[in-house]
């Protein structure tokens, strides 16, 4: 089974994506993911005076990853400002601003530091529309760099998406390339529900295929690094088939889309790779259709295994595609340990671990 696919990049052009990409404005230029995210905020702040950006070091300095560079200069200090170092304060204040009628885009410097804000996110932002029967809403978009692969150790590498995907009322979005990052971030900021927008920092500058010991590439050579300068949206809740295939379905998001693609290439398997892009609401149709076609499913994420988002995906596939499955659903994930520093590459679910799982599924 399985046919050889030699060049993944041909299949990763935006044009090859299943999801529609309407309402483009202006020319396209080469952008890395940081520039695309910056451009999304820039474009929306131009269009909507209620969009404001806030967080630790986001103002004058432009963010520790440069995601907000130039925005304060362009839009002024009352729309782009630095905050005290208090994550519960940042999100609590953003909820209040949302109740006033603003559309705040708060940044949490690392996803590893979002926990002090959990009460405001889980008890307040997520519940506000429900508990007030729609009178008050929290149209906030929490941007936060996440994921490992950068020797970030325990507190600069975590992938806490499952915590948020578990909370009714929150949406969780994770882009995997500059083109998507901008389109999804615009959709997230315009969305009237609170959105957790996790940015895989390992791929800010270029796609990462998991081969840490080989030279890194950058987005300038990747088709998804071609980003329209103007306004466009990628709808939330729509996955992208980044590589059509027949032999099995790979579900991934963020950095792992690229790592999974590399593992599939190396294994020479005709896998269908789905980039989920949004975890909640999930594009169940695309997943279901694919697994019913292929009969096999591999789920890949960086986050720890137990109670990770992969467990939900696995359960859904099992419930909805049971009679089509030819092998057990497999999960390749981070191990159930805190994220290590020196042993990062033993921990990270790279092409070897994924490759072993691919072979196992295809053998069954």
């Amino acid at each position, binding site marked *: 089974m399985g046919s050889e696919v030699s060049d993944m990049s041909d299949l990763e052009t935006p044009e090859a994506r299943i999801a529609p990409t309407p309402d483009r404005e202006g020319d396209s230029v080469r952008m890395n993911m940081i520039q695309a995210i910056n451009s999304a905020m820039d474009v929306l702040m131009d269009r909507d005076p209620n969009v404001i950006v806030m967080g630790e070091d986001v103002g004058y300095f432009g963010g520790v990853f440069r995601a907000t560079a130039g925005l304060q200069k362009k839009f002024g200090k009352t729309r782009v400002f630095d905050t005290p170092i208090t994550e519960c304060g940042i999100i609590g204040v953003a909820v209040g601003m949302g109740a006033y009628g603003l559309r705040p885009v708060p940044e949490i410097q690392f996803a590893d530091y979002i926990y002090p804000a959990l009460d405001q996110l889980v008890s307040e932002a997520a519940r506000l529309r*429900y508990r007030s029967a729609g009178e008050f809403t929290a149209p906030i978009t929490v941007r936060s760099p996440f994921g490992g692969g950068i020797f970030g150790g325990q507190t600069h590498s975590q992938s806490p998406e499952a915590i948020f995907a578990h909370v009714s009322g929150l949406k969780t979005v994770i882009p995997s390339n500059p083109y998507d990052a901008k389109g999804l971030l615009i959709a997230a900021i315009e969305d009237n529900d609170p959105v957790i927008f996790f940015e895989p920092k390992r791929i800010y500058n270029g796609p990462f295929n998991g081969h840490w010991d080989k030279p890194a590439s950058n987005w300038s050579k990747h088709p998804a690094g071609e980003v329209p300068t103007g306004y466009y949206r990628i709808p939330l*809740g729509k996955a992208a088939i980044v590589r059509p295939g027949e032999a099995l379905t790979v579900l991934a998001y963020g950095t792992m889309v690229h790592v999974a693609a590399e593992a599939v290439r190396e294994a020479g398997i005709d896998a269908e790779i789905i980039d989920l892009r949004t975890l909640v609401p999930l594009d169940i149709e695309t997943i279901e259709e694919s697994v019913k076609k292929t009969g096999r499913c591999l789920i890949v994420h960086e986050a720890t295994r137990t109670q990770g988002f992969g467990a939900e995906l696995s359960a859904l596939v099992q419930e909805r595609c049971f009679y089509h499955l030819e092998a057990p659903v497999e999960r390749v994930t981070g191990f159930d340990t805190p994220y290590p520093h020196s042993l990062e590459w033993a921990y990270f679910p790279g092409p070897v671990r994924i490759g072993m799982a691919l072979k196992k599924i295809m053998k069954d």
Partner: protein
Amino acid sequence: MTGEPSRANLPPLSLHVPEPKFRPGDAVDFSDFDVPPAGEQRRPDTAEAADKFHDLAFTLVRVLDDEGNAVGPWNPRLSPDKLRQMLRYMALLRAFDERMFRAQRQGKTSFYMKATGEESVAVAATMALQRDDMTFPSYRQQGILIARDWSLVDMMNQIYSNSADRLQGKQLPIMYSTKEGAFFSISGNLATQYPQAVGWAMASAAKGDTRIAATWCGEGSTAEGDFHSALTFATVYRAPVILNVVNNQWAISSFSGFAGAEATTFAARAVGYGIAGLRIDGNDALAVYAATEWAAERARTNQGPTLIEHFTYRTEGHSTSDDPGQYRSADEATEWPLGDPIKRLKDHLIKLGEWDEERHAAQDLELAETVKAAQKEAEKNGILGHGLHQPLDTLFDGVYEEMPWHLKEQRQQMLDEEQTSGRPWDRK
């Protein structure tokens, strides 16, 4: 052992665990309680620098003296009509609380919380604000709604979670919410409203609006991290916000010492943040009004936030689920040296010759009838668990703006389940 200092001669450390003065059965003696005389506290300019408030953070701003006179620089000099209106709102709040507490005991709803003894805190403060200033209350400021003439029937519908409940039966009783009433959705999670109020005030300032925000929490909630983050944000951005701490001495069974009251005041917290801090007699409606009016002017003139500690006493149990007889002396409420806020305002009006006991008694009767009539009206829409409720599928509304597929599936599952069960939950 080399280099290790000998510990043999050091006295053992001891851990201090606060203990309230009086427990059940104890005779209460407040004679050592220092009540500053009314009228003696200075009233600074509303633009005074925040580092000058040390004295006002450690005293009690008081207007009404023991004889019922309004004295000193904080006297807001309200008209008799306004004083009577204030008294009426406070009495209405107490009548409402009495009736709803009884409704819970009669099994008409699951839960209630009274504000007895604290009526002035929410009522007088609200009267000193504009109608569209945004309030971020805790669960014991139903007086805001009362003082904004909010419909009692609407409040009761929420308490009964009935078919007319605007919150669709989604919230625990008393967790009101009304955008029109500029009353933010109450959350069960303590102090979360504090940074939200600051954020709302920051937004108002950023947009060049003229509205300000006010928020309330209990002294127990000041121990939450959100209290700290809110004060930090408020001072950093000079947010036009009034931060009220209702120090009613008790956080369920824990006395205020467990929030730090043995060592300092709650108004004094403001000083460390660079926020103007006032500590006021919370049972003195005129002091509450005057302090709020002062803080509102400070906020409206871009001079920044004010923290007001309302020193008061929670006369009754924490909630219908609480029995204060288990942890404090029953005499505390009656011996409380700052008295009852309604009686004190009533005595003042009588002293002015603008009120009398007969009119007061008649008003109490009238308000009781008003509340009773509202209750009758609300009960037409149902009481908790008696059939008249929201359509079943509203359970899934409002989680998101648009319902995602998984909620649609679960909604259908619930409707199928109801069909199968034969329970009387059919959609109305």
